């Protein structure tokens, strides 16, 4: 299985993202009381809308999805927010190990008073971690970042925290991606991607 990078010229006109939890819900039929069991392993679902394209450009869409053949995966960044809204730049790294399941990252090298904003997407060892709350680094560039999703495997200290188009690996929700060709152009289409690892 190979992972093919999302072509940079395949720029979507729309993108929606949600985190699908892996839980089982139980609702009492008598009292309406609600409980939930966490089975671990939440995944990102991203739906991208590819715009109407000229006939000469439409072949690239077909070729990319056909190349995946339902077997291979795609590496893509979060098209709606490829870089943080916050000001954190430079080469931030983990200043302490991030254990499996944690939702807090200790980061150094975030730049003096660099910030992250809730919703910013960061990359850590190939995983997307979404910032859960605004945070500001110290003068020395140290920052503690709370994340919306959990670290799925322990990541060692000094691992790079990617802020510039961090990528995650996805598979197509359906391996069939028909591109509708109309006279002179190809129609827009929606493609659903599900995070895989």
């Amino acid at each position, binding site marked *: 299985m190979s992972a093919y990078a999302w072509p940079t010229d395949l720029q979507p006109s729309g993108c929606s993202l949600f985190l699908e939890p*892996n*839980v089982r819900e139980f609702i009492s039929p008598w009292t309406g009381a609600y*409980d*939930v*069991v*966490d*089975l*671990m*392993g939440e*995944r990102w679902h991203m739906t991208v809308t590819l715009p109407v394209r000229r006939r000469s450009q439409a072949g690239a869409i077909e070729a990319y999805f056909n190349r995946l053949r339902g077997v291979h995966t795609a590496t893509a960044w979060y098209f709606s927010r490829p870089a943080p809204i916050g000001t954190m730049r430079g080469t931030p790294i983990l200043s302490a190990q991030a*254990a*499996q*399941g*944690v939702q807090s990252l200790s980061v150094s090298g975030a730049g003096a008073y660099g910030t992250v904003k809730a919703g910013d997407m960061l990359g850590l060892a190939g995983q997307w971690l979404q910032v859960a709350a605004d945070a500001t680094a110290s003068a020395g560039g140290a920052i503690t970042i709370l994340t919306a999703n*959990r670290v*799925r*495997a322990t990541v060692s200290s000094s691992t790079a925290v990617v802020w510039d188009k961090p990528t995650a690996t996805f598979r197509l929700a359906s391996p069939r991606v028909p591109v509708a060709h109309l006279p002179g152009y190809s129609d827009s289409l929606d493609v659903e991607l599900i995070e*895989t*690892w």
Partner: protein
Amino acid sequence: MRTLTAPIIAALAARPVGIAQLVTMYLTSTVYLNTTAWSLSWNSNTYLGAANVGRIDVIEDAPGEIKGLSFQLNGVGSANLALALAEPVQGKRVVVETVVFNASSVVVDAMVEWEGRLDVMTIQEEGGSATITVTAEHIGIDLLRPTNSLYSNAEQQRLHAADHFCEYIIDQAEQPLIWPAASFWRK
């Protein structure tokens, strides 16, 4: 009745509760799998996340019945296929444990849910997909299996050649013993 450890009781009392199942198959090279999408470390072993490719039957408890279990693995991967084709799995031990996570998603403890022995592994291909299925018998089935060992001299000699305890057992079987003997009262 199952006795839960204190850490598990504490984790169950908290919300939300996180659970998973660990499967350990004691094959030539021990296979460690878990039912989540993550790889989990427990007891110094790494249990590979099989959520994408694995399935375990529902474990059912019924009075008077000892039920088996079935495990399925996606057979697309060559490693899994090799496992099914080359590994003599019959009779190998398999243990299913339930682990409970605390609120920080850390495994707090594990308890054995089911234990048994693997039966034959089969590969099924249909509808463009392949699956490897292995059934297992619960270890408790041994209790229902008739024992073929008898209290006979031949069996005792087979087990302990120097032991003649059962040598006259046939002569003694079903013999009426009258004690004291009638001659005692005639004295």
